[in-house]
Structures are given as C-alpha cells and as structure tokens.
C-alpha cells in the first residue's frame, strides 16, 4: 500500500504545510474578484475546493507525523526584524497543531458543503442573493486565519491568526448587518457584531499584555525559545509566570466565551447558522483551549493559575448550562450549551488534563457542529414551509415576490423560524434531520457509547482526581446539559406541530442531510479514538505534550455520569410530557417548578444588563465628562468663574468691607469702587474661550517649572 509505505518509510509532506494557509487565501481572492461572475455553483466549487484542499494537506501532515512524530518547523517568511528581535513567520507542525488542523479543515469542509445549500436559501429569504459569494469569501478567509493561528510557531503569529479569526467572526456575525434575525430593518445584527468585537478586545488586551511580559522576561515569543526557559524564569521571578498565565486566561475568556467575557457569544448567533456551527461552536471559540494547551509548560509552572482556570471553566460550564435551560430560540440554547461545553474544556486544560480537554474539543466539534447544522436545517425547513421560494413553485401562506418578509408584518410579530414554541412534531416531517439531531443530543448528554460520553467522562475522571470542587461543578453542569438538550429535542421534534409551518415542514436537500449524516457517524464513533484501552489520541498528543499519565477507567465515575444523564433525560421528559398534546405553546411547564428563578435564567442572569449599567454607561459617561466637562465646562466654569472671578469677588468684597463699614471713607471710596468696578470688568473678561486654552498652556508650564524646582532642590 502506498500510504503504508509512506507511513513507514517516512516520506514527509511537511513542506506542503504552508498551502493549508495559502490555498484558502487563494479561494478568498478568486471568489472576491470573480465570485459574482461565476454564480453560486462556481463560488461553491472554489470555496469547498479550497477548504477541502486544506483538509488534504492536514491529512498529509498527519501521515508525515506518524513517521516523524517529532514534527517540523516550516519557515515561510522573514517578517519583523528589529535589532536582536527576529520574528519569522514559520509553521510549527506537531501532533497538537495537526489535530487542530484536521478539526478545522475537516469539520470546516463539511460545513462549507452544508453552507453551499443553506446559503442558497438564506440569501434569498433575506432578499440579497448577491451576497452569496461574499459569504464564502469570509468563510475561506476564516479557514486561512485559523490555519495561521493553529500552526503559528510563536505567540506573535498565533496572535495574528487570533485577530484574523476575530475579524472574520465580526464580519460574519454582521453578515446581515442591516437587519435583525427576522429580516426586519434594524441595527441589531450590526450591534451584535460590534459587541463581539469589543468584548474580544478586552480579552485581547490580556493576551497582548501577556505577550509583552513574555517578551520582557524571555526575550522571545517563539514557543521553542520560551518553553525551555520556563523553569529558569520561574526560579528568578515566580510571579511572572502567574501573571502571564492569568493574562492569557483573560484572552481565553474572551475568545472562548468564558466568565466574565462570555456575553458576546449568544448575540453572535445573529450570523447565519453555518457561521454559528463553524466559528462559534466547532473551531474559533476553541482557540482559547488550544492556547492553554499550547502554553502547557507555562501553566504547569503556575499552579495557582491552573486552579483559577479550572474554576473559571467549571463555573462557566454550570452557569451557562443553567441559562440554556429556559431559552426559546433554538440557536440560543445551543449557544449557551457551547459556552458550557467550552467551560468543560477550559476546566480540563486548566487543571492540566490537556489530553482530556483536547479530546473533548474534537468530539464537541463533531456533535456541536451537527447540532447547529441540524438547527439550521430545521430553520430552513420552517422557512420553506412558511413561504416557499418562487423557484420551488410552492404556494406558501403569506408568500411574496421578493422573499422579504419585512414589509407586510406591521401589526403583529413576524414569523420567527428559530422560535421553538412554533415547532413540535418535526420528527415525522424531517426525519433525517431529526434522527441525526437526536444522536448529537445524546452525544452531548453523555450517553454511552456516543462520542461525548468518552470525552466528558475523561474530563470528569481527571477532575475527580485533580480538583474535586470542579468535579462537582461539572457534574451539576452535566445534569443540566442532559436536561436542556432533552427539553429542546422534545420541544422541536415531538408532540404536535404548533404552527402551520411546522405542520408542513420540508426535509432539507440531500447536500445538507448528507453532511448531517456524516457528522452523525462521527459523533457516534468519534469517541473510540481515545476510549479506555485504546488511548490512541493520548499517545498521539504525547509527542507534543510529553508523557501523559493515563488514569484507569473508573466504572463508578462513568456510571454516575451516565446515571446523571439518564435521570436528567427522564426528568425533562416528565416535565415536558404535558406539552405533547399542545397545539399552541402556553406557559413553559418548567416555570411552574422554578417560578421567578426561571425568568432569571431566561434573562441569562441579567448579566448583560449588569455590564450595561456598570461598564458601558460608566464608560460613556466618563468619555462625555472628559470631552465636555474637563475640556470645556471644567476649565471655563469652574476655573474661571469659581476660582478667579469668585476669588476676585470675594477679595473685592473683603476689600470693600472697610468702605461699607465706613472706616475708610472719602479717599478710599474711590479705591473700593474701582476695585469693585474692576471686579465687574474682570468677571466679564473671564468669559472668553481662547483664554481658557492659554490658561491650560500656562498651567502646564507652571506645573512643569514647579516640578523642575522641586526635582532640583
């Protein structure tokens, strides 16, 4: 066999690695310039081809690594040279980066294929078919940026990719920037994009500061130069590694949507569903997990940071899972679920269980991508039943020529195809979507032998040994996970249809269902790559992470977690069984048990509102204050009127008092009057503006001279 020969004799393809970046970039250029001319088919071929090519490259890297597990560094270009600092752009090919490459390009290509069909509908329902090409331009750009991120051999290159994927995320969340998710003219989507960007900048500040510190104390940003010196630096300045790892963690909380910076991810669902699947579930948001794993030497040297990271992850997992319980938007449930699952991963890599965390990253990419794509399939199915496109020749209810449904919904709420309250009974209408969705849901709930079970079990096992508190948090989160996903499945697929659209839903085209089935297979069997006794994935990563102790499979942990899952599913079924007969959604049954708490959960614990009050408003107020008050009102009113004019008035009053008292009469009268007169003139003189500016100059000079006098004393 050719492949085996290659694997054994060691033909290497490392030199091809740059193509994983440049071919998607080529796709970007081609579609950007010729996309409109080629039509949808041409765009699709180029985009899927570029992404698929990247996947082939990733597979070749994996094959090469089997023969040469030590990996390679592939230089691409000299980039920045300043004195002793040389930053070359090189790719680091090792088992960790190739794992990420495989996930990004593999799942990415599947989602590309799905999007070919999905976006066909989406651009028509949103009323601008011309935007089809632009979507794939951004999508390919994202793949390229993600490749830069995962293959970078220094923090700087990683940061470039980090910012690049952030940019793509920003562009794609705001893809329908002139409307909200229902197609009504609004800035809602644009605001969501802005929010994601701004919140991420907070995280990026942490990352940047971490880079500064790293460069300061290590003199380099190259992984190969930083990591070997970790112990040396740790011995000299123990706080440095703690600071670096905590600052990196801040970056992680931004990109991977952890407490306190997770607020952008639910809003990011404003992007088209394939975007949510690829960027905001499977790949980009896991970059934080990758970053911690990549920096495992630094974290290992800062145990306190590890504890904090694990706690952040554990808390996020639990809090986000609780928020998912009471959402009605099919994608919002998945968004909070993603935050929660990312919490599992961050907790895992945070406490040092890098293999478990990366393993969950991979399986999660499979089943969460599947869930999102499934939800997209549901949404399109409802849209098509609600008003078919003219090309399908159907007669929908309220069908209109332009496919815009903004214009004729003035009086009542427009139909929201993402609202689970209008679904129900879809199992019979769209069986492929439904069954694949259920497989993914079970995988998420951690039911054996699906993929999610193995990876989650491994995290729980490690947590039990390393940090029992986190273990408790994660177990509770696992319970809520199984509960909310069961709730969702029941609301969407079971019971009776609760709207006309749900009753007439149409199964999605083969291109989409094909992808769903592929991902369902992966979600079902993907867990076996690191199942107890196999540990292929663990051994694979050992080449990069060093020796990883394998914990014995613990039937108690596995049994408990399975039991938790089953109990949660049963409870959800008990609570929501009542809704099966409904033809119209009324009050959520869960609300009867939780009452006020339910609303708190539904509003995501009022987290956004808190930020709005504390940060956004405060910040605006400060900015306004500085611009107007300090620059203008302050100088003018306060300084002039209060200090100078006021002081003068007081002085003149003091001086004229003797006059009033009649102690100095006659001669002094004139003096008092002139002083008072001068005061009046003065006060009118103080209303000038140029004067304020001159006064600022003057004050600056005086304080400089006072300082100089003090310094030279």
């Amino acid at each position, binding site marked *: 066999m050719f492949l085996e020969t290659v694997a054994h004799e060691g033909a290497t393809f490392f030199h091809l690695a740059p193509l994983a970046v440049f071919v998607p970039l080529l796709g970007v250029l081609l579609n950007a310039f010729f996309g409109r001319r080629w039509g949808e088919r041409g765009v699709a071929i180029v985009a899927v081809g570029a992404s698929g090519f990247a996947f082939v490259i990733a597979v070749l890297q994996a094959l090469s690594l089997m023969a040469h597990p030590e990996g390679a560094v592939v230089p691409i270009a000299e980039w920045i040279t300043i004195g002793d600092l040389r930053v070359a752009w090189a790719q680091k090919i090792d088992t960790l980066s190739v794992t990420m490459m495989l996930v990004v390009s593999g799942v990415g290509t599947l989602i590309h294929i799905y999007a070919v069909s999905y976006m066909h509908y989406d651009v028509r329902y949103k009323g601008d078919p011309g935007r089809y090409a632009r979507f794939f331009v951004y999508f390919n750009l994202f793949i390229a940026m993600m490749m830069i991120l995962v293959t970078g051999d220094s923090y700087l290159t990683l940061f470039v990719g980090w910012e690049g994927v952030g940019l793509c995320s920003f562009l794609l969340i705001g893809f329908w920037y002139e409307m909200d998710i229902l197609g009504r003219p609004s800035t809602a989507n644009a605001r969501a994009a802005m929010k994601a960007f701004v919140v991420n900048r907070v995280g990026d500040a942490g990352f940047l500061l971490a880079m500064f510190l790293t460069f300061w104390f290590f003199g380099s940003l190259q992984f190969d130069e930083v990591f070997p010196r970790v112990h040396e630096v740790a011995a000299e300045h123990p706080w440095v590694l703690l600071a670096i790892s905590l600052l990196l963690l801040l970056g992680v909380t931004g990109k991977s949507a952890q407490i306190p910076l997770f607020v952008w991810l639910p809003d990011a669902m404003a992007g088209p569903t394939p975007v949510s699947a690829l960027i905001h579930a499977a790949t980009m948001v896991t970059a934080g997990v990758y970053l911690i794993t990549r920096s495992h030497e630094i974290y290992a040297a800062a145990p306190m940071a590890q504890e904090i990271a694990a706690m952040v992850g554990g808390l996020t997992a639990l809090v986000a899972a609780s928020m998912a319980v009471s959402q009605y938007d099919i994608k919002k449930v998945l968004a909070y679920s993603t935050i929660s699952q990312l919490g599992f991963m961050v907790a895992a890599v945070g406490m040092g269980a890098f293999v478990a965390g990366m393993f969950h990253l991979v399986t999660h990419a499979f089943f969460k991508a599947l869930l999102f794509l499934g939800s997209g399939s549901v949404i399109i199915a409802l849209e098509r039943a609600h008003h078919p496109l003219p090309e399908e020749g159907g007669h929908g209810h309220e069908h209109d020529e332009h496919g815009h449904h903004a214009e004729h919904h003035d009086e009542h709420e427009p139909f929201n195809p993402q609202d689970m309250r209008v679904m129900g009974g879809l199992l019979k209408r769209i069986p492929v979507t439904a069954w694949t969705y259920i497989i993914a849901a079970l995988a998420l709930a951690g039911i054996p032998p699906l993929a999610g079970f193995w990876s989650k079990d491994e995290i729980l096992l490690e947590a039990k040994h390393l940090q029992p508190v986190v273990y408790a948090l994660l177990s509770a989160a696992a319970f809520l996970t199984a509960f909310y996903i069961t709730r969702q499945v029941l609301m969407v697929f079971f019971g009776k249809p609760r709207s006309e659209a749900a009753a007439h839903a149409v199964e999605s085209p083969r291109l989409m269902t094909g992808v769903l089935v592929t991902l369902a297979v992966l979600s079902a069997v993907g867990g076996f790559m690191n199942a107890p006794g196999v540990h292929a994935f663990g051994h694979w990563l050992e080449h990069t992470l060093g020796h990883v102790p394998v914990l014995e499979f613990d039937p108690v942990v596995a049994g408990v977690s399975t039991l938790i899952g089953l109990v949660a599913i049963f409870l959800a079924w008990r609570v929501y069984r009542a809704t099966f007969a409904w033809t119209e959604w009324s009050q959520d049954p869960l609300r009867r048990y939780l009452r006020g708490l339910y609303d708190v959960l539904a509003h995501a614990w009022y987290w956004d509102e808190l930020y709005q009050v504390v940060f956004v408003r405060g910040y605006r107020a400060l900015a306004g204050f500085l611009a107007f008050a300090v620059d203008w009102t302050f100088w003018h009113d306060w300084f002039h009127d209060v200090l100078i004019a006021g002081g003068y008035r007081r002085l003149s009053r003091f001086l004229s008092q003797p006059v009033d008292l009649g102690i100095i009469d006659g001669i002094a009268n004139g003096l008092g009057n002139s002083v008072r007169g001068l005061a009046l003139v003065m006060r009118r*003189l103080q209303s000038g*503006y140029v004067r304020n500016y001159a006064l600022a100059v*003057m004050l600056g000079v005086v304080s400089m001279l006072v300082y100089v006098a003090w310094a030279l004393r």
Partner: protein
Amino acid sequence: MVPTSFYIFLAALLFTIGAVAVLVRRNTLIIYMAVELMLNSANLAFVAFARQFGDISGQLFVFFVITIAAAEVAVGLALIVTIFHTKHSVDIDAMHELKG
C-alpha cells in the same frame, strides 16, 4: 555693573506680566501686545546673557526675534482686521463658535 541676575529677574517679571495679560485681557490687540511683551522679555534676557558672556551670537538672536515679531505683527494684524470686518469687534470672547 548691574549683575546679570537683576536683568533676568526683570525679564522674568515682564514675561509673567505678559503671560498674565494674555490670560486676562479681552481685546485681541492688547493680547497681541502682551505676547510681544513676552518676546521682548526674552530679548532682554538674551542681551543680558550675551553681555555677561561677551558673546555676539546672543545679541544676534535678538535681532531675529525682533524681525520675526514684525512678521508676526503683519500676519496677526491682517487676521485681526479680517475678523473685524466680519464680526465688527476685536473682542476675543466673541470667538467661541468652535468648541466641544
């Protein structure tokens, strides 16, 4: 001979008077005169130092400053006259349309 420091103190005093006058006067022409006073106090300091050092270059500087002041007067008066045409006032406080 009067010590140099006396001159410098006088110059500093004149300079301060000029600077404060800029801050407190509202007639644009007078403000400009105050600026001239500041420049001339610098001249005084320069000449005093030049005398102390017996150095001609310090005195040269004074001539340049005087020349520049003349050029500034040309520009400044032109501006003030232009504004007087528009606003019929040389009150500096009348100029506060631009702010924020």
